[in-house]
Every structure is written in C-alpha cells, then in structure tokens.
C-alpha cells in the first residue's frame, strides 16, 4: 500500500503530462494554423489551411477534454483549486475555442466568409494566449491555505511573467503551425510558411530565453529546484539539447526540408515540456501542494488506470490511423 500511495499519483502525473503534451503539440499546430490564417493572402489559400485541419482539429481538442477529466478524477483538489484561481483565463480560453470551432463550421456554409475568417483567427489567438496565461500563472505559483484551497485574488493571472509566457506560447504555436503547413502544402504557400516558421522560431527562442532567465526570480520554489544539485545535470543537459535542436531547425528550414522542421519543432516542444515538468514535480498546484496531497484515493486511481490505461494505446492507434489516411499534401477541393 505504501508503494501504491507513492506510485499511483506519480503515474497519474505522468499520464496528465502526456495528455497535456499531446494537446499542446496537436491542438498547438491547429491553433497556430488558425493564427496564421489571419495572414493568408487569398481565400483559396485560407481554404487550404482550413482543409489541413478539417479531419483532425476536433480529435486534437479532445486531448484537452481528456486532460481535464483525468485531472478531475486523479487530483480533484487541484482541479478545483487551479480552475478557480484561473477563472478568467479559463473562460477566455473556452471562449476562444468556441469561436474557433463554430467559425470553422459556419465558414463552410457561408457565402461571405470574411467575418468567420476573422472569428476563426481571433478565436485561435485568444485560446492560445489564455493557455499561455494559465501556464504562466501555474508556474509562478498559486497561493493556497493549508487545505490546498485557493487564497489569492481573482486577478492573480494578470502579471508580466504570465504575459511573457502567453506571448511565447502564441509564437510557439505559430512555429509548429508553420512547420505543419510546410509539411502539408506546396509551392507558394509552402514558401510563405518557411518564412513564418523562421520568424516564429526566432521570437519563440527570444521568449523562451526570457522565461528561462527570469524563472529563478519568479518563485522561491523554482529557484530551489533549479539550483538543486540533484537536478543540476538535467538543467545543464536540457538547454544544450535545446540549442542543438534550434540549430537543426534553422538548418532544415534553410535547406527547404519538408518533414524535419516539424519533427524538430515537436522535439523542442517535448524538451521544453520535460523541463517544465521536472521544475514543478511533484507539485500539482505549484508551489506547495504535491500530487500526494491532492490525489484522490488509491483505489480510485487504480480503477481509472485500468480503464484509461488500456485505452491510451487504442486512442493513439486510431488517431495515428486518421493521420495516415489523410497523409500527403492538402489540395484545394
């Protein structure tokens, strides 16, 4: 039992991280393409952008729903406390996702597509930005009482550091969206998104550097973790790997490669995500509430794991099949 009380919350922390990572990568490029659609030079090119998402955006968004459900079931305390603290940005994100989804369907049927184009792009920016604000606020810490209940103000999320994270995440989504479009398009449109990818890679890098160097000042807990000798090798290797990947990304863009820019971007996302994960673990409500305090009962987590654990590979398989069925370049129908 001792073992399970340590093991189950850890497993669920990893599963949650997996769902969130899949969401950030997959809906990340959806949202990135959505933001990029604001700059599409023509309606037919915008149609290609939208078509590249048609069969996947909905399943991609579902990883967020899954993450929410898993957080609710495995760490009910964290679900209540974090979402209550992030009331404003959570609803802004929901608003953005609703606008995005609805504009997508309405545009299909509209003669005058312009208002829906605008709504699609703005919804994507709003969703991406508010996700960044949520992330930034959680990383810099959510004040709680001894029972783990939120004690901060309703405006806790309004601060410079969460704004920086938000802007960086938007750039990151534009980057992964651009590299996805390099993969899915050809000709003029592809060349355009090589340029947007290069630009977004530079701005994302700038944001990431800013976050990295200001993180130690953001909270005491982060400072301790970053300078903890036990984690030192990790925090030395991570940036080195990051630099190598960024160099590779720029090289592959310069060489007009189609697949590699996307792969390197995904690897960069995974790397940043691993860095953030190690920074907060085992806190689920940073800085102080750990997964062991916030978890549901062991039996509950075991029960959920037996169902959802079996389903994870199955979900991955049919999602991958979906991508395989629609592989290749998108053409304007």
């Amino acid at each position, binding site marked *: 039992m001792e073992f399970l009380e340590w093991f189950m919350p850890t497993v669920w922390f990893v599963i949650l991280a997996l769902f969130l990572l899949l969401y950030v990568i997959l809906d990340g490029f959806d949202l990135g393409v959505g933001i990029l659609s604001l700059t599409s030079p023509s309606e037919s090119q915008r149609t290609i952008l939208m078509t590249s998402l048609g069969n996947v955006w909905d399943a991609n968004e579902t990883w967020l729903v899954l993450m929410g459900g898993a957080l609710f079931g495995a760490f009910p305390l964290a679900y209540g406390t974090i979402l209550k603290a992030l009331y404003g940005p959570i609803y802004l994100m929901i608003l953005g996702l609703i606008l995005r989804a609805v504009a997508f369907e309405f545009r299909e049927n509209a003669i005058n597509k312009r208002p829906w184009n605008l709504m699609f792009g703005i919804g994507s920016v709003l969703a991406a930005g508010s996700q960044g604000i949520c992330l930034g606020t959680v990383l810099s810490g959510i004040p709680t009482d001894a029972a783990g209940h939120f004690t901060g103000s309703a405006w806790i999320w309004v601060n410079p550091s969460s704004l920086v994270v938000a802007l960086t995440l938007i750039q990151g989504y534009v980057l992964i969206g651009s590299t996805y479009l390099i993969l899915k398009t050809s000709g003029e449109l592809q060349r355009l998104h090589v340029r947007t990818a290069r630009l977004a890679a530079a701005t994302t890098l700038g944001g990431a550097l800013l976050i990295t160097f200001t993180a130690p000042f953001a909270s005491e807990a982060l400072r301790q973790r970053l300078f903890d000798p036990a984690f030192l090798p990790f925090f030395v290797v991570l940036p080195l790997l990051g630099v190598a990947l960024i160099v590779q990304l720029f090289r592959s863009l310069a060489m007009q490669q189609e697949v590699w820019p996307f792969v390197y971007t995904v690897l960069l996302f995974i790397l940043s995500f691993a860095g953030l994960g190690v920074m907060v673990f085992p806190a689920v409500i940073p800085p102080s509430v750990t997964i062991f305090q916030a978890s549901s009962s062991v039996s509950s987590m075991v029960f959920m794991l037996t169902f959802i654990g079996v389903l994870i590979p199955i979900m991955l398989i049919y999602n991958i099949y*979906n991508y395989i069925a629609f592989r290749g370049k998108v053409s304007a129908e």
Partner: protein
Amino acid sequence: MLATLDVVTLSRLQFALTAIFHMLWPVLSTGLAIYLVVLEAIWLRTRNPLYYRQARFWAKLYVLNFGIGVASGLPMEFQFGTNWAPLSEFAGDFFGSVLGFEGAMAFMLEAGFLGIMLFGWQKVPPVIHFLSTVMVAFGANLSVFWILSANSWLQTPSGGTFSEGHFHVQNYFAAINNPFMVRSVIHMALATVETSMLVVAAISAWSLMRQKAPEFFLFSFKLALVILLAVAPLQILAGHESAVQVAEHQPTKLAAIEALWDDQAAGSSPAWTVLASPDEASGSNRWSLSVPGAFSWILETRPQLSQPLRGLNSWPADQRPHMVGLLFYAFRVMVAIGLAAAALMALSLLLWWRGGLSAASFAQWPWFSWAWILSAPAGYLAIESGWVVRCVGRQPWTVYGQLRTADAASVLPVGEVLTSLSVFAVLYTVLLVFALYFGSRIIAKGPNLTLEPPAGLATAVILSDASESA
C-alpha cells in the same frame, strides 16, 4: 436586482444556461449518427447511389451540429472546477473518474473517427468508412451512457460512504450502476433517437410540402418513420419507468412535479392533477383541474396507492425543491409532447398502410406537413423540459441528500461569474441564430442529386451490376 444576486445563484444560472444550450447539440450527434449508420449500411448493401446521397446530405447537417456540440461541451466540463470546486473535491473520486472515462472511451472515439466519416470517402476503403461511421455512433452513445451514469449518481448516490466532506468509493460498479442509471440511460438514448428522427422527418416533410426532391425526401421520411415506430412507444414506457423510479428514490421531486402538497395514505385513491396554479406561499394550488382517482392508475396502474406518498408540505422548506410551477409544467410539456409524437406517428403509419402516404400527400395536406415540421422543435423542448424536471427537481441538493447546492458552489467574486454568464448569454444567442440560419440554408439548398459515389466504389457497382445482369 442584480445586486441581490448571490454567487451561488449566478453559478446555477450559468450552469443552467450552458447546459440547456449544450443539450441542443448532442441530440443529433447521437441520434442522427445511428441514422447515418443505417443509411450507409443500406448503401453498401444495395450500391444504389440514392442512399449514398442520403448519407452525404444528412452528414452535412451532422457536422454543422457537431462542431457547436463539441465547443459548447467544454464549459460543461470546466465549470465543475471553476464554479463548483467544492463538488469536485467532494465527489471527484467518482465523478471525475467517470468524466475521464467519457473522454477517453466515448468522446475521443467519436472525434477520432469523425474526420474519416466526413472527409474520408475517397481516402479509405468502404468497409473502413462504414466502420468509422459505426464508431462515431458508438462513441456518441457511450457518451450518453457515461454522462447519464454520472448525473444519475448525483440523483441516487451509491457505491460508497460519505465522511469528512468526501465521497469514498467502495464499489465502483455499484456507483456506476446506481439505482437511476439503467432507466435514465435508456430514457435519454431513446430521446436522442426520437428527436433526431423527428428532425429528419420534419426536414423531409418541409421539402415534400414544397415538392423538392420528392423521391429523396419520401425515402428519408419513411425510414425515419419506421425507426420512430420502434422508438416512440418504447419511450413512453421508459418515461413511465423513470417516473416510477423518481417516486421510489426522490419523493420530493415526485411531489413537486405533481404539485402534491398533502400526504396521501396507502390505499387511498388521490386525484391526478392535469393543470394547476401551484402556490408555494400557502402550500396549495390556487386552482386545479384534476381527474378523480387517476393518480394511482398513472403511477402504479392500480386503483389504490400501495405506498403512502408524502406531500411537499411535510418537508421543511430547506429540504424540498422550489419553483414547483416550473417543475409541474415542465413535466407536463414533456409528457404531452411524447404522447403527441406517438399519435402523429400512428396516424402517419395508418395513412401509409392505407396507401395514402405519397410525396403528393404532403402538399395536399399542409396541416399534416406542419404537424411534422413542428414536431422537431417539440422534440427538443421535451428533452430540455425533461432535464429541467431532473435537475431542478433534485434541488436543494447537488448530490441528493448529501451535498447541498449552496455548499457545492465555489466562493467567487460576483462580478466574475456575472461577466462569464453575460458573455455566454450573448454568445449563445448569436450562435443559435446563426446555427439555425446555416442549417436552414443547407436544407433550402437540398441534397445534391447528381453526386456520384467514390470512384473505387463506382467500379465495384459496375462490376456487381455486370455480374448480376450476366
């Protein structure tokens, strides 16, 4: 007036608004998916392009509806954290797990195969496409199962113990299979199929009335009618069974939906109130129209009550639902629509049987067409009324008998909830208007009657035609 609103009321209003709006969309996602499976099966079996065109036309409405359903589902899930954090903590062990299952088992299945179902006609073999349509329908119906199981648990919590402000699960299967679960899942699943078929029949009737694509819409109408034939009578039975379980497990709700103020002894034979003006202040009805001795017939199909029934007045005011008038009439609206739909179905069947149901009948009898056209909004109204009965009738409890709604709500600044509520109210009104506008455009445009099946399949058709003629 707004200044007097407390945050619990605002969070309740927001939940009610978002739930009522959200409920409009999963109806077709679930029920119409089954219709699409049937159409595609007929198409694969007959290889007649008419059925392929049917599948493609109804799928257009399906996707318009689906996107809004997905989007409006998000606030449902996240509200449990933002506005109902104490409930999340109280019941998260079970309630959160079930929402997680719904996501992993049902929602992802539906979303993962939807792309192939909608855009994959040319991309995958017909069998895989059919399988994808089946998975979409299966996923949607699994959603009904999990969501209704979770909601039923709020109605009849079981499978564990309550202590220290927490629900501790002891038997998951007992909690999932709580007393309300089976009959609620059946009632809801039938409701989605019935209303979806009413929508198909209504659109078909409207088009037939104007003699648009008569052959196409006469088929879709008849297929919907055949499915309704199985579903509508079953739904009346399922509805009755649901009322019986309410009588057994939630006496306060039963008393409220029947505006029953005073206790009724076992062996008595109370009147059944058809219409009334319930007055909570005096604990009685201002006036009522009732059928003597009918109550026990309706509830138990016997002349006298076998069990005593407690009236609303026998509970303290803080242990029973309020808004008795709303509950009383919401219940009656639902029942009346269910019965009327069954009657319309029986009438149409009679016409069909007597050979009078042709494409021309709809233009000839506008009243008949209009009855069908109006049945679609009526179906939605019945579903919404049913949910009002179910959830307003559960008050003052969020977890029946265990957690009060007032204790389940997060303590939030009033302005915060008021803002999100107002944004939802405006946004959802606009979305509904445009969804109806674009939906009616798809209907007005009608099906593409020259659409050819995917190339690979066309060859298969030619080959099978050739082998048949040979």
